């Protein structure tokens, strides 16, 4: 039999671990329509006919968060063949609250009581037979992380699916509320004739709806027809009288009372609370005085392990992230030279398409994969061990002021390294609003690839002294802008008061390597497939625009070029024409000329490309004569260090070395002198840096944004906010700067 079994449970109940154990590493991660919540599916590894679907972790089936609405809509409308409700045995009272609500949907359910090892260690004894009898459904003890009890659990799940076992109708509510539910049910079912075949399912749905109506559920109440409303309002009014004017509270109260009674009969807890390892760890980690220093150290370690080139202050020791990225790039280099040999004899444009377009485009994706992998494994470690919730606890006071949650700290911090993994880290935030705003803000952060732009401009324009200060001010600018944009988005787009902060602080647990590995792998796969396509296509488009013009297709280029190539130089390309058309837009920002404009566009391939492109476009400055003179001042050793083979000056390599080893480091104070005809003042130069800092990030980051925000509409809106911000800020900088200096 083909069955679909859904996993439902509280966050931190071990649901994902159970899912991984049941399905193995083969799982499909998609998304629920229209929201930034993962939808995971897989097949049971011991029976391929059983589909397993991981519902979002929720505490209840109220309609107050995207996760809760998804979980309940799926259970109520799609009616899976069975639901496995996973319950944290160490925290059984609160977990059973969701169980009661799942039972109310009259769907076949099995309860899996997880963390039984910890339950036994802490001296708690659970009477499973009593629980099972009370609910009328199987209740199975398991230890998900050790794979214990899972066969029995799946047997029970298949059995209830086979038999379509409907849970008992529980006597939770008092007579007043039951009367109201029955009355609402009458109204809901009076409109249509229940056909015999659907009778069971439709009745279950309406009974569930009746409970929700009495519970004052916004969504279900909103679906009532105009005929039904007056009658139902009367019923609810009557019910309120007997529930101290508040049926909603009464129902939650009665559910918990039912659970408290049940637990007192079936669960024995030790009289004295034993201080667990988790309690001891927490005393240190969130200690009044130690919390913030420890937090700073953990964040530093996390950042260093991903991005550092001098790990833990050891000169030249690479972090796993950077080391792996280097390995990936070297391997890709070999493949590149292999391909180079293959296409060397083809026409120039085919060669360029393969080498500068395809190989470069794929290389951009491959270079980011190690960073995504390492950072995401670290994040899942923090998440799984329980520290992530403490970060939110410690940082909440600061971030709340800007309309965000403390959890936004990690993506924003990582944005200083690279926007790609940083954007993907937004998935760990609690609400859709926080995820969207933080995704936009990570694009503002001065990532590693933006530093060459600052280095070149600072050394070219701000010659006298204040170099460090200028660079530092750009860092500050990104933070201030992020704060202001967050406040504005909260106020005008989301119109929300600060989000609530009712959050569980889960017990500390040692994460399993398997679950961290699966997390990292999932993220890499998602990035390579979803973001990869976007990165690849946009790189090819910019390649085509910057290498061709109208004369490419009428034979003029082929006739003029020595090698009969149909390609055009960049300063005559389509991109230059686009630059000319767009340039006036940047007039008010002080750099309304085509060459700086083209620089901004190529910066979207990768931000450091701004520097290379400008060096290419200002070829009056960076010609062979200039390069020869410039490098003649260097000794043989210095030349070798810069990248010339054997320290011998080489005309062919000179441009690349000048752009990447000299300009990136800000190593030429006379760089691009004629650029000063286009970008005339220091204010304009600063505005140009600010624009590149704040505008749309590189395509790789846009790919990651699309992956997190799901729709093109949201991604477009996010990019729109970034562009507008960049424009407004640069406008202010240029105009105010011009007045003062």
């Amino acid at each position, binding site marked *: 039999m083909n069955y679909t079994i859904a996993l439902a449970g509280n966050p931190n109940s071990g649901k994902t671990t159970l899912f991984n154990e049941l399905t193995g590493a083969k799982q499909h991660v998609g998304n629920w329509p229209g929201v930034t919540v993962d939808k995971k599916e897989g097949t049971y590894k011991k029976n391929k006919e059983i589909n397993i679907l991981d519902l979002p972790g929720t505490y209840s089936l109220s309609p107050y968060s995207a996760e809760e609405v998804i979980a309940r809509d799926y259970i109520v409308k799609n009616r899976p063949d069975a639901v496995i409700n996973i319950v944290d045995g160490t925290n059984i009272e609160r977990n059973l609250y969701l169980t009661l609500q799942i039972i109310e949907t009259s769907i076949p359910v099995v309860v899996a009581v997880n963390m039984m090892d910890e339950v036994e260690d802490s001296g708690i004894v659970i009477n499973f037979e009593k629980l099972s009898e009370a609910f009328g459904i199987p209740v199975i003890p398991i230890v998900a992380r050790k794979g214990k009890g899972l066969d029995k659990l799946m047997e029970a799940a298949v059995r209830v699916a086979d038999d379509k076992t409907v849970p008992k109708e529980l006597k939770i509510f008092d007579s007043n509320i039951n009367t109201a539910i029955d009355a609402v049910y009458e109204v809901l079912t009076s409109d249509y004739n229940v056909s015999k075949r659907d009778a069971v399912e439709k009745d279950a749905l309406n009974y569930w709806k009746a409970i929700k109506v009495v519970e004052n559920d916004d969504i279900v109440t909103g679906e009532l027809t105009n005929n039904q409303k007056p009658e139902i309002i009367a019923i609810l009014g009557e019910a309120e009288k007997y529930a101290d004017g508040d049926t*909603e509270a009464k129902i939650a109260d009665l559910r918990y009372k039912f659970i408290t009674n049940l637990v007192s009969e079936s669960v024995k807890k030790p009289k004295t609370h034993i201080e667990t390892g988790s309690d001891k760890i927490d005393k240190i980690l969130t*200690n009044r005085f130690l*919390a913030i220093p420890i937090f700073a150290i953990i964040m530093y370690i996390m950042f260093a392990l991903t991005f550092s080139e001098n790990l833990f202050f050891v000169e030249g020791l690479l972090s796993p992230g950077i080391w792996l990225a280097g390995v990936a790039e070297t391997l890709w280099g070999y493949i590149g030279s292999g391909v180079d040999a293959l296409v060397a004899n083809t026409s120039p444009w085919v060669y360029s398409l393969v080498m500068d377009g395809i190989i470069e485009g794929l290389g951009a994706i491959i270079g980011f994969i190690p960073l995504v992998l390492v950072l995401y494994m670290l994040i899942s470690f923090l998440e799984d061990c329980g520290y992530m919730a403490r970060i939110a*606890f410690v940082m*909440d006071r600061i971030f709340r002021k800007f309309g965000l949650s403390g959890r936004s700290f990690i993506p924003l911090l990582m944005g200083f390294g690279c926007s790609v993994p940083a954007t993907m880290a937004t998935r760990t935030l609690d609400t859709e609003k926080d995820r969207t705003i933080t995704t936009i803000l990570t694009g503002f952060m001065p990532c590693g690839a933006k530093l060459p732009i600052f280095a070149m401009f600072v050394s070219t324009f701000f010659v006298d002294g204040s170099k460090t200060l200028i660079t530092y001010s750009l860092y500050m600018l990104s933070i201030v802008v992020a704060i202001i944009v967050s406040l504005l988005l909260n106020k005008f787009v989301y119109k929300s008061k600060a989000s609530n902060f*009712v959050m569980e602080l889960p017990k500390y647990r040692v994460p399993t390597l398997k679950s961290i590995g699966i997390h990292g792998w999932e993220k890499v796969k998602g990035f390579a497939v979803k973001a990869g396509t976007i990165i690849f296509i946009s790189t090819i488009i910019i390649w085509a625009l910057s290498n061709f013009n109208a004369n490419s297709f009428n034979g003029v280029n082929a006739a003029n070029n020595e090698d009969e190539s149909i390609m055009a130089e960049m300063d005559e390309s389509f991109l230059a024409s686009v630059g000319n058309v767009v340039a006036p837009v940047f007039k008010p920002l002080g750099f309304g000329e085509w060459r700086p404009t083209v620089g901004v566009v190529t910066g979207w391939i990768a931000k450091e490309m701004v520097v290379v492109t400008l060096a290419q476009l200002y070829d009056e400055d960076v010609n062979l004569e200039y390069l020869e003179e410039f490098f003649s001042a260097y000794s043989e050793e210095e030349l070798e260090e810069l990248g010339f083979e054997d320290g011998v000056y080489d005309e062919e390599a000179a441009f690349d070395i000048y752009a990447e080893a000299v300009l990136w480091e800000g190593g030429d104070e006379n760089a691009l002198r004629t650029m000063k005809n286009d970008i005339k003042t220091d204010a304009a130069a600063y505005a140009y840096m600010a624009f590149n800092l704040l505008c749309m990030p590189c395509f790789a980051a846009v790919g990651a944004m699309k992956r997190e925000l799901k729709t093109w509409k949201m991604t477009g809106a996010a990019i729109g906010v970034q562009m507008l911000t960049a424009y407004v800020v640069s406008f202010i900088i240029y105009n105010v700067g011009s007045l003062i200096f």
Partner: protein
Amino acid sequence: MTLNDLKTGQTGTVQSIGEKGPMRKRLMDMGVTPGTTIKVIKVAPLGDPIEVNIRGYELSLRKDEAKNIKIEI
């Protein structure tokens, strides 16, 4: 008195939880219902939010939210 008035380590019993709305519903879903025992475990290093123990697990909430929870010792 409210949950906000409890000192670290003190225990109280929940009397009522503020006004109708998503906030209160969320608190009740998390097990903060009238008659439940609640204990203040600690205050965050920056002075807010606070951490409480309720129904055997740790919950954190802001002082603004704690202010709405009426308590009896």
